[in-house]
Structures are given as C-alpha cells and as structure tokens.
C-alpha cells in the first residue's frame, strides 16, 4: 500500500519549481535594468562628449560659440571649492563624531544631536542653498564667493562625514582603549594616539565619498547665485567663481544642438574628476584598513 502518491507530489512540486525559476529570471531582469541603464548612460555620454574633449577645451573659458567653449574656469573653480569644503567639513565632521562616540554621555541631549544629524541628512540640497543664501551670502555678506559656496557645501555633506566617522571610530575595539588607559594615558591622548590612527582609513574613505557628492551637487550653487559666464580664474577665497556642475547645467539648458555635445564633454570631465576621487578612496580603504 502506498501512503504517498509519488506522481502527484512530483506534479505539484514541478509547478512550484517552475514558478520559482520564472521569478528568478524576473528578479534577475529587475537587477539587469539598473545595470543596463548605467551602460546606456555611459555609452551616450562618452560617444557624445569625446569629440569635444580636446586640449583647447581645458584651456578656454566658456563661450557663446560651442566650438570655442571651454571648461577652464569651472574645473579650477571646483578645485578651489574642494580646498574650502574638505578642511571645513572634515574638521567639523570628525570633531562631532569624536564627541558623540568618545565623550557624549548617554542622555537626551546626545540623543537629540544624533536624531538631528539623521534628519539633516534628509534635507533636500536646494534647501541648504536657501540657508547659504540667507546666512553666508547675505547676513555675513560673503557674496557669491568660493567661501560662501564652500561653507554651504560643507554643511550639506556634514551628516555623511559624521556618520562615516562614527562608524570608523566605533569599529576600534574597546580593548585597545583600555590598554591605553592602563598605561596611564589620558582620554585625549588615547583618542589622538590610539583611536584616530586606527579609524583614519574609514574616516578618509567616507570623507572622500562625501566630497565627491559635493563636487557633483548643483542645486545649492544655483540658489546662492553662482554665475556661469566667468572669464577669469578665482583669485582668492572671496572671489567669484563657477563650478563644473553649474557649467554643465548652463550648457545643457541651451537650445543649440552643439551645446549638448559640449555639455556631454563637461560631464565627462566631471565623471573623470569623481573617478579619480573614488579611486583614491578605494586605494586608502584597501591599503590602510586594519582588522582587529
């Protein structure tokens, strides 16, 4: 006597297994969709922009004529911007992270600061632009200078750097700290000589990724009134300037077909800029990261 009808089990199992296989394919294509879009995006921009990527493109200022338009002012401007954003955002971000991880007591105030940081991360970048316009451009009358844009961008990427630094500091095991205290070191000595050196690869990786977000961010620059047609290089921190994404935005908006290609070339420069930054981040992560 048979208790289990083998045939019917196989039959029912088969349909469930087929459905499983069908859905595996569906999920795979869902994943492929993103990859495919990325491929098309890169292909389009490279084929459109590569023709305009000549040495003159890097030596010319922007122009009304597509053939003469260059990216010099924007590229140098973006580098200037980074020289303000990097120190300001890293000092503020790492300082906040050290405070929260090493010094802050577990009370409502520290909870509030943490909650505030996670909410700040969700504020749209265009709203940061409004903050920069009111506080830095008008109230502190810095004008639409490198400094005003730099401060605005620093505040924008601050939450990202704080969170990355917090994670890096948290990953340093407590044994090491206690060993340091055991040798008679004070808290600050432990932080500077023990915790920070081991956390620095993580902090730098996070910081560079955050900075590359600042390089590509356009909306706050538009809101604080960064001009696009600039025929000179910045001379100081209070000088007017323009940046890569601003220049691309200006070109992409123009109706002439040829400016589309100039914009694509500008995007290529921006992407190469980001690629270099990200490679440095990956290099640091692989070279210096320590495991306990």
């Amino acid at each position, binding site marked *: 006597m048979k208790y289990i009808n083998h045939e019917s089990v196989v039959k029912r199992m088969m349909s469930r297994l087929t459905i499983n296989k069908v859905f*595996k394919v569906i999920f795979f294509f*869902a994943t492929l969709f*993103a990859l495919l879009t990325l491929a098309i995006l890169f292909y389009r921009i490279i084929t459109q922009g590569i023709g305009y990527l000549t040495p003159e493109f890097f030596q010319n200022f922007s122009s009304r004529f597509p053939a003469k338009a260059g990216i010099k002012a924007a590229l140098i401007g973006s580098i200037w911007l980074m020289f303000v954003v990097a120190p300001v955002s890293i000092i503020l971000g790492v300082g906040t992270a050290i405070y929260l991880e090493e010094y802050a007591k577990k009370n409502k105030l520290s909870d509030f*600061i943490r909650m505030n940081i996670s909410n700040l991360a969700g504020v749209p970048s265009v*709203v940061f632009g409004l903050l920069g316009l009111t506080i830095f451009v008008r109230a502190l009358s810095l004008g639409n200078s490198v400094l005003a844009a730099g401060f605005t961008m620093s505040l924008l990427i601050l939450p990202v750097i704080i969170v990355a630094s917090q994670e890096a500091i948290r990953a340093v095991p407590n044994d090491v700290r206690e060993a340091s205290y055991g040798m008679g070191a004070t808290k600050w000595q432990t932080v500077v000589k023990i915790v920070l050196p081991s956390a620095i690869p993580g902090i730098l990786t996070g910081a560079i990724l955050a900075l590359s977000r600042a390089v590509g961010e*356009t909306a706050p620059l*538009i809101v604080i009134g960064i001009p696009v047609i600039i025929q000179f290089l910045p001379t100081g921190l209070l000088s007017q300037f323009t940046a890569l994404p601003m220049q691309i935005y200006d070109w992409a908006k123009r109706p002439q077909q040829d400016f589309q290609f100039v*914009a694509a070339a500008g995007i290529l420069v*921006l992407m190469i800029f980001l690629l270099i930054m990200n490679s440095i981040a990956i290099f640091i992560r692989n070279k210096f990261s320590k495991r306990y």
Partner: protein
Amino acid sequence: MAQKQVSDQPSVQELIAKSSNKKQKQLVEKLIPIILFIIASISVLTTIGIVLTLIVETIIFFKDIPVFSFLFGTEWYPFANKEPAFGILPLIAGTLKVTIIAVIVAVPFGIGSAIFLSEYASDTTRRIIKPILEILAGIPTIVYGFFALTFVTPLLQQFIPDLKIFNALSPGIVVGIMILPMIASLSEDAMSSVPNSIREGALAMGSTKLEVALKVVVPAALSGIVASVVLAISRAIGETMIVSLAGGSTPKFDFDVTGSIQTMTAYIVQVSSGDAGYGTTIYYSIYSVGFTLFLFTLVMNLIAHAISKKYREEY
C-alpha cells in the same frame, strides 16, 4: 656595569613627575570636551538655521500674500505683470506627479533587485553587482538630468507622439532610476539581516526559494523595506536638477503627465537663476516654497525613522 647605567638614569618616579605637567594636562582634558561639544552643536545650529531662515522669510512673504490663497490657490503665476497668483497647489501637483512615476519605476525594480541579490545571487555575483549599484547612486543628478533631456524624452516621444519636450514622464522615470539603488541596497540590507536559520527552516519544510523569499524573508524584513521606500520618496520629492532640466517651468494643477510641469524645487531654481530682485515678493516666495518642501521631506523622514524603529524585529 649594568647596575651603574641604571643608576645614571633618572628613576621612574622622577620620569613620571617630569613628563606629567599635571596642570597643563588637566586643562587640555577639560577644554577638549567643550571644544568638541561646540563643534558637535554646529549640526544642531544648521538645523535651527534652516528652520529659522525658512520661517522668518516665509512670514515676510505672508505679509504680501494671504496664507489661505497660498495653501489652497490653484494658480501659480508669480511673473504675471498685472495680477500675480501664488497658489502652491500646482507646484505640489508637479512634485507629486514626478514622485509617483518615480515610485512606480523604482519600487518593483528596486525590491526585485534586492530579492535577487539577497536570495538568489551567489556571493560572486553580489560582489560584482553591489558596487555597480553604488556607482549608479553616486552619479550627480545633473548628469541624470542631461540623460533625461537628451535620451529618455526623445526615446519616449517615439512611443508617445504627443509628449512635449518638457514633461513629467521622462524626469519621473529618471528620478525613479536615481532612487532605485537606494531602495535596492537598503532593502537588501534588511533582507540579509534576516537570520539564515529561519530560511533553512522554511527550506527544510519543502519551500522553494521563491516561497522562502516572499513568505518568510520579505515579511520579516518588511519594516526595513518600507522605510527604504519612504526615504526614497523623500529623496524624489527633494530632487532638483532632473526636474529643472527635463520637467519644464509651467506649473499646472492637473493630472497630465505628457505636458510641461514645474515642481517646488524647479521653481526655486528658476527664480534663483533668473534675477528676481532682493526683497520682492518673488524673492520671498522661494522661501515659502522651500519651507513647504522642507515640511514634506521632514514628514517623510520622520515616518521612515518611526517605521524602522518601531517595527524592527530582533532575532
């Protein structure tokens, strides 16, 4: 010999006394937490700065324009010479159109990819695909905007001849592509944190992988998945450059997705890149729109926060 060398050097007590300038050290130890606290409070000051800026300038705006006609007005013609109208509903409609299209694109593809990566893909596949998704997430939005304007819109026009150059459909789809990696990666994190013992239990009962994924893993990770979607919606609402480049600048209060629209963010950009004089009603209107935008995203972020906190399942 050895003894003599030792006695030549200062004793341990002397060394300690020498190196610990107690007063100076204590001062540093007391000052450092204060300095760090001041640095940490800058993030709080930023939030206060944002809220105060928006509120103060919005109040000035409301001196010119009544609150009621701002909140419920269905016409937004700030540049009209004779009778400018400041009713925010058309801008909200534009934002919602783009956001809804983005969600329709991003949620199925995002969660589909998350299930594939977490339940089906081998370790090698996952190690290849996850960094590519990160690249997608790291592309500046201005690049997506250019892509929407020069590739997606012409492509869609081949299927929908009525589609205008500026429309809601194309930026909506591209915003969806932009938030897709966020949903995929956060949902994948949530699914991966479901312990393997539960999966193995279900598999041992004869479930197929699909049944494990849909009936065990997804329900267990649901709070994380929903939180990721809400966060992504908040990103889509605040997205600026894609809609500025491909969405147009015609605020309309309707359900049409093929014609030109304007979102709240695109309006702020339009006014900022033109030259609305400082102190005009138009100048203050960008703050009132910014404040509305800020409240929208704040509510979304708080909801996401509450979901992931309240319904987090601990194993």
